[in-house]
Every structure is written in C-alpha cells, then in structure tokens.
C-alpha cells in the first residue's frame, strides 16, 4: 500500500498536510512529499484534496 500524488494535478495548497493524522506528508516549497514509513494510507488526504490529486494505492 502506498500513496500516489499526481504532481501534474496537485495545486500544492497543503490542505492534505494539515489533515494527515500521522504527520506523514510535507509541503516542500511547491510539492508534497510522503514519508512512506509513517503513512498509514488512511485516505483522509485523498478525501479532502480540492482537486483529487491523491490516490491511495491498495
């Protein structure tokens, strides 16, 4: 399981980072990075993304 962020769709707003319960995401300048070892693929980031740029790969 992992998280896929479509960087061509992402508007780098940081909303996903704010809702991540584990602090696994980070908005670095203008892109989002995922720490795969902390991410629990709960999908909350996917749920609130304003453009739908995040996908949980099961």
């Amino acid at each position, binding site marked *: 399981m992992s998280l896929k962020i479509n960087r061509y769709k992402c508007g780098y707003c940081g909303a996903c980072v704010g*809702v991540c319960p584990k602090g696994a995401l980070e908005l*670095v*300048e203008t892109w989002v990075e995922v720490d795969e070892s902390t991410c629990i693929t709960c999908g909350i980031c996917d*749920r609130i993304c304003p453009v739908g740029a995040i996908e949980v790969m099961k």
Partner: protein
Amino acid sequence: MKDMYDVLVIGAGPAGSIAARTAAEKGLDVLLIEKRQEIGDPVRCAEGVSKVHLKKYVEIDKRWICSDLNASHIYAPDGTKIEMAEEIAGGEVGYVLERKVFDRALAEQAAEAGAEVMVKTRATGLIIEDDFVRGARLMHLGKEYDVRARIVIGADGVESKVGRWAGIDTSLKPIDIETCAQYLIAGANIDQHHCEFYIGNEIAPGGYIWVFPKGGGKANVGIGVLGSKTGKFKPRPVDYLNRFMEKKFSDARIVEMVFGGVPVSGSIEKTSTNGLMLIGDAARQSDPITGGGILNAMNAGKIAGEAAYAAISAGDVSLKKLEEVYEKPWRETMGHDINMSLIVKNCFINLSDEELNSLAYSLKNVKFERMSLLDLLQALFKANKKLLWDLRVLFKDAAKEVVKNKT
C-alpha cells in the same frame, strides 16, 4: 545567517511577518524564514479583509489594494438576496488585497525594522533540549544549518509541522477544514463595489461560493467545501466551482488557479510550549464561519512578537510564562470570537436548503445598515425557533455585550 538569534520566525505570511516586525521593533535579534523562493506566492486566499481592522496593524498602501467594497450580497439557495451595507458587511470584507504584494510589503517592513529575512529556507526539524525548543534545523539551497533561538515562532500555515515537532497535535479532522478552489477571472463584467456570497448544500456543502472583485473587471471566484462533505466519491471543490462558472461566468477567462485548505476547527487546546509559540493558520486561528484568517494572523503575530520580548526580557521562555504573555491575551480576545463563530458554524452546516431559504426570506426586506448583531439574530430567530435553541449560547453572549455597552 548567524547561528544564534533571540527569535526565529518560521513562515513569512502575515502572521510571521508581523511577529518578526514587532519583535525587531522591540530591539530583539530576529530571523524570519520563508520556505518558498517568493514571499506571497503562490496565493492561497480569497484576499478579502475588513478595512477598519486592517488599519490596526498596518498603514494602508494603495499598491496592495485591488478594490474597495461597500456592500455584500448574500444569495440563498433559491436566489433570495440579502443585501448588507458596509457597517455590517465590514466584519470581514472591505478591501480585496493583492496578497502577492501585501505579503511581501509586510516582510519588507519586518526587514526595515531590523529582522533578517531569508527565502528558500525551510525548517526541517526543531532543536529540543531539556524539554525546551532551542532553535531549528534549517535547509537553505540544499544545505542544512542548526540555528539556535531563545524563542521559535511557528507561522508555517495550514501545513504546519512546527507544532507537531514540538508535540502539539495540530492535525485537522475533515470537519475542521474548508477545502477550497478559486479562479482569478478576467473578461467578465463584474461590479467592482460589492462582493457576493452563495450558500446552499447543492452548490457548496458546508461552505460557500464567493465572488470578490479585484479591479479592472477581474474577480476572485472561489469555493470552500467542508472537508467532511466532500471526498473520493463526491464532487471536489474544483468540480463545484466549474459548475458555478459554467452557470454564471461561462465567458470569463481563467488567468490564475488557486487551491487551499482553511482551518475551521475553532481554537485548539495548545498553541505554545517551552520556547515555542504557534500563530496564524499554524495555530488554527482562522474564523470558523467566514474562513477569514489574515486579521487574526496579524493580531496573533503582534501578540506573539510582544510576548517574545516580554518573555526574553524576563529571562523566562517557559510554557508557564508564554501562557501568561501569549496564550491568555489571544484566547481572551480573538479566541473568544473564534469559539463563538464555531458555535454558529456547527449550527449552520446542518441547515437544509429549505431552512436556509426561509432564513434568507425572513431577512429579505430588512434594512441592514441600521441593524445590530442582536437585531440580526432576533430576525433570524423569528424565522426559525430551532435556531434560537441551537444558538442560545450566542444569544446570551450578545445580551451580555448589550448590558456591558449600557453600563
């Protein structure tokens, strides 16, 4: 960049820049860092702000004002229009700013006051010793540096990491965030003297659509949807926005896209710890009803800048001291307003379109420029008895205000 400062401010938005300016004006040695290479860009904001309140924190400069508004029009789901004149609407809207210019001007003011400013510089972690935050690890152009500070101020926005690093849980639940999309449109025939709000579960569940004129026929047209009302199998904010654009501004040209997340959680339990304060969106200080965050951020920045001076002068940067000089002052003032707004938010997100229509209808012929908050609430309560019960806490609060003003 030195390896020691009095105050390290992380994030150069309105909160961080005002904090840095305030602390520097007090004579403190301040470093203000911004992870992006351009302060104020990309924008993540609808850019509306109250005139009267803005003047409290900064001298108004025409260069960052796009339009000057004198009224708000609110549209209920069935199209019923409520018109509010400046005195009432001025709570959140008055000017529409150019944040790219505004944010940079505030950072420049911090620099003029003596703060060192560094862009393309991001914090990657905190230096914590004996349970005290004593600085941060910074990355600038790929190189890492340890920078120590007596006080660290986290002004790192909705995506804040600083609080989490210090053990403060700032994570937002879906019901605590408005997820937003906005287009800057050109070529549309838009009145430049009023802003518009559209509410309804069909068009913007748990949020609203806004149209804020930006001068020269341009406007910010955007939407916020409550995080708990959107999701994988539901339309996204951008889908709702496209629908609205198709209906209202099908001929307009989109010259900029903006996305964002706005905290609407109400005040969180903790915004400071030993050697650290959080301010602005990082402290979840935006208003839960309007989503407005600029003024609260500037207010918190000012309080935190003064608090840093008070704590450092006293040689005590412990949580206990920061509770006295930062937590208490902000919670007693804007914290109270934020919590009142949260009560209203929790009530309004559960109203059906029929209920919203009936509320709007009851206010349709009311002359708003002469209305007080109490009158507004009374008019609303007449139309909906359940609302009176749900918002009884507010009513008590408003009554207290009246009594206070009389004595």
